[in-house]
C-alpha cells in the first residue's frame, strides 16, 4: 500500500515539476523581454506551445533511435527528478533515495543528453552532429569542476547519499544557522559547482549547442511535432531537477513547499541573469573557461578538505 501511495505521490510531484518548469520557462522569457525593453509573451506561453505540438503527428521516419532519443531525454529527466529528495521530512516527497544515489544521479544528468545525441545523429541534418559534438565536449568540460565539488561535499559529509548530505547540513544548521549550508561551509566547492551550473543550464554565454544564427537549434533541427513536446517537457523537468539537486547539495534542502519554491527559483535565476548580460562563447572558449577558474576552485575545495 505504501509503495503504491509512494508511486502516486511521486507521479503527482513529477507533474508539479513539469508545470513549475514550464512556468519558470515562461517567466524567463518574460524577464528576458523586460530586459530588452519588450512586453514579452504571457507567462503561460510554454503551455500553449506544448499544447500545440502535443496535437501534431508526423509521417516522417528516421529510424528507431530517432524516436527513442526524446524518450531517453524525458526518462532521464524523470529518473533524475524522482531519485533526489524534493522536500525533506514530508513522507513520499523524499524521493526514491538510497545510499550512494548521488553517483546514479550524476549519471542520470548525462543520460538524457547521450540519448538525444544518438537520436539526433539519425536525423541526418548536418547541424545535429555539430551540436552534439559541441554539447558533449562542453559536458565533459563542466563535469570536471562539478565532479570535484561533489567530491568535496562527499568528503565533508561522509556520505554518497543526497538525503544524508541534506541531513548533515541540517545538523550543522542547528548550531550555525544559515551558515551551516554547504554554500558557506564549502565556498570553493560552491564556486566550482555554480559555475558548472551555468554550463548545464545552457543559457548564454554557454548556449553553444543550440547556438542561434550559427547552428540554429542544433541537435533538435529534425525533431518536429510530438517529439518536440517530449523534448520540451523533458527540458522543463530536467531544469527543475537540476536546481532541486543544487538546493539539496548547497542550500540545505527544503522543509516546506514554499521554501523549495523560493530556493529553486533563486538558483534558477542565477544562470538567467548571467545569461542576460553576456554574449555567447565559442566552443573552445567555453571549454577553456570550465577547465580554468572553476576547475581551480574545485581542486582548491578538495585540497582544503584534505588539509582539514
Amino acid at each position, binding site marked *: 500500500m505504501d509503495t503504491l501511495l509512494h508511486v502516486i505521490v511521486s507521479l503527482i510531484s513529477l507533474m508539479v515539476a513539469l508545470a513549475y518548469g514550464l512556468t519558470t520557462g515562461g517567466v524567463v*522569457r518574460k524577464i528576458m523581454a523586460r530586459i530588452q525593453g*519588450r512586453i*514579452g509573451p504571457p507567462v503561460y506561453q510554454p503551455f500553449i506551445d506544448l499544447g500545440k505540438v502535443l496535437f501534431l503527428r508526423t*509521417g516522417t521516419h528516421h529510424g528507431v533511435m530517432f524516436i527513442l532519443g526524446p524518450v531517453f531525454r524525458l526518462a532521464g529527466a524523470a529518473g533524475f527528478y524522482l531519485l533526489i529528495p524534493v522536500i525533506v521530512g514530508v513522507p513520499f516527497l523524499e524521493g526514491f533515495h538510497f545510499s550512494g544515489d548521488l553517483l546514479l544521479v550524476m549519471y542520470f544528468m548525462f543520460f538524457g543528453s547521450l540519448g538525444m545525441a544518438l537520436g539526433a545523429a539519425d536525423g541526418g541534418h548536418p547541424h545535429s552532429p555539430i551540436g552534439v559534438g559541441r554539447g558533449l565536449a562542453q559536458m565533459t568540460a563542466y563535469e570536471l569542476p562539478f565532479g570535484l565539488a561533489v567530491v568535496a561535499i562527499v568528503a565533508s559529509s561522509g556520505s554518497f547519499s543526497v538525503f544524508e548530505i541534506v541531513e548533515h547540513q541540517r545538523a550543522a544548521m542547528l548550531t550555525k544557522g544559515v551558515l551551516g549550508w554547504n554554500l558557506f561551509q564549502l565556498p570553493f566547492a560552491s564556486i566550482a559547482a555554480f559555475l558548472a551550473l551555468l554550463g548545464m543550464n545552457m543559457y548564454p554565454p554557454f548556449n553553444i549547442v543550440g547556438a542561434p544564427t550559427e547552428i540554429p537549434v542544433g541537435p533538435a533541427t*529534425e525533431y*518536429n511535432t510530438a517529439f518536440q513536446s517530449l523534448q520540451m517537457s523533458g527540458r522543463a523537468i530536467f531544469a527543475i531537477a537540476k536546481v532541486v539537486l543544487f538546493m539539496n547539495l548547497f542550500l540545505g534542502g527544503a522543509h516546506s513547499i514554499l521554501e523549495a519554491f523560493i530556493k529553486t527559483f533563486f538558483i534558477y535565476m542565477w544562470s538567467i541573469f548571467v545569461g542576460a548580460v553576456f554574449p555567447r562563447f565559442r566552443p573552445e572558449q567555453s571549454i577553456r573557461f570550465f577547465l580554468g577558474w572553476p576547475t581551480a576552485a574545485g581542486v582548491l575545495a578538495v585540497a582544503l578538505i584534505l588539509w582539514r
Partner: protein
Amino acid sequence: MRDELPVLHGVPPIPEGSQPHARCQDECFLGEKPEPLKYREAIQRIKNWFRANSLHVLAYGTGCGSIELRPLGTARFDMERFGISTRPTPRHANVLIISGYLSIKTLKRVIRSYEQMPSPKWVVGLGSCTINGGMYWDSYATMKQLDLYLPVDMYISGCMPRPEALIEGFAALMDKIKKGEANGYLDYLERLDWYRENQKKIIHDWDLPDYSW
C-alpha cells in the same frame, strides 16, 4: 512568361480521381470521412485555439519585405507578446511568410521548405509582389501571383507594408485559425496535382522530389 499562365478567379475544381487527404499528415483518414461528432468539434476548437496562439514563423525572407519583418521582434513592435516567434527550421515552424518578390529560383526552395513543415501550416503573402507582381510585374525572373503555387491564407497588401500592417495581418490570421477557416494546407494536399502543374510551368529545370517529406 506572363502570358503562359492563366489568371484564375475563384477556386478551380478538384481534379477527378484524386484521393482526398491522401498525403495528409494530420488527422489522416483515408477512404470515407466519418461524420463530425459534437465532441470532435469541441476538441477541434481547443486545438485551433492552441494553434492560433502559438504561431511559429519560419525565419526566412525572400524579398525586400523581410526588412519589415525584423522590427517585429524588437522592443517597438514586439510580436512575441502575441505568442509569435521565429523558428530557424521548417520542422518547427507553422507559418511561412513570402515577404515580397519571389524569384523562380527561390520558389524551388520555398516549395521544399513549405512541404517540410508539419501540418497545419499557413502561408502569408506579404506585399503587392505576391498578389500581382507589384513593381516586378514585367520581370522575367519572378512569379506574379503566389496563390497559383502555394495555398495562401492571408495577403497583406502594400509596398512595403509597415510592421503595424503585419501585426494586423497576424491578428486576422489568428482569427481565421480560431474559426477553423485557414485550411490552405488541406487545399494544397487535395489539389497537389494542380499546384504541381502550375509550379512546373514556371520552374523549367524541375528536379524536386514528388513530395518533400
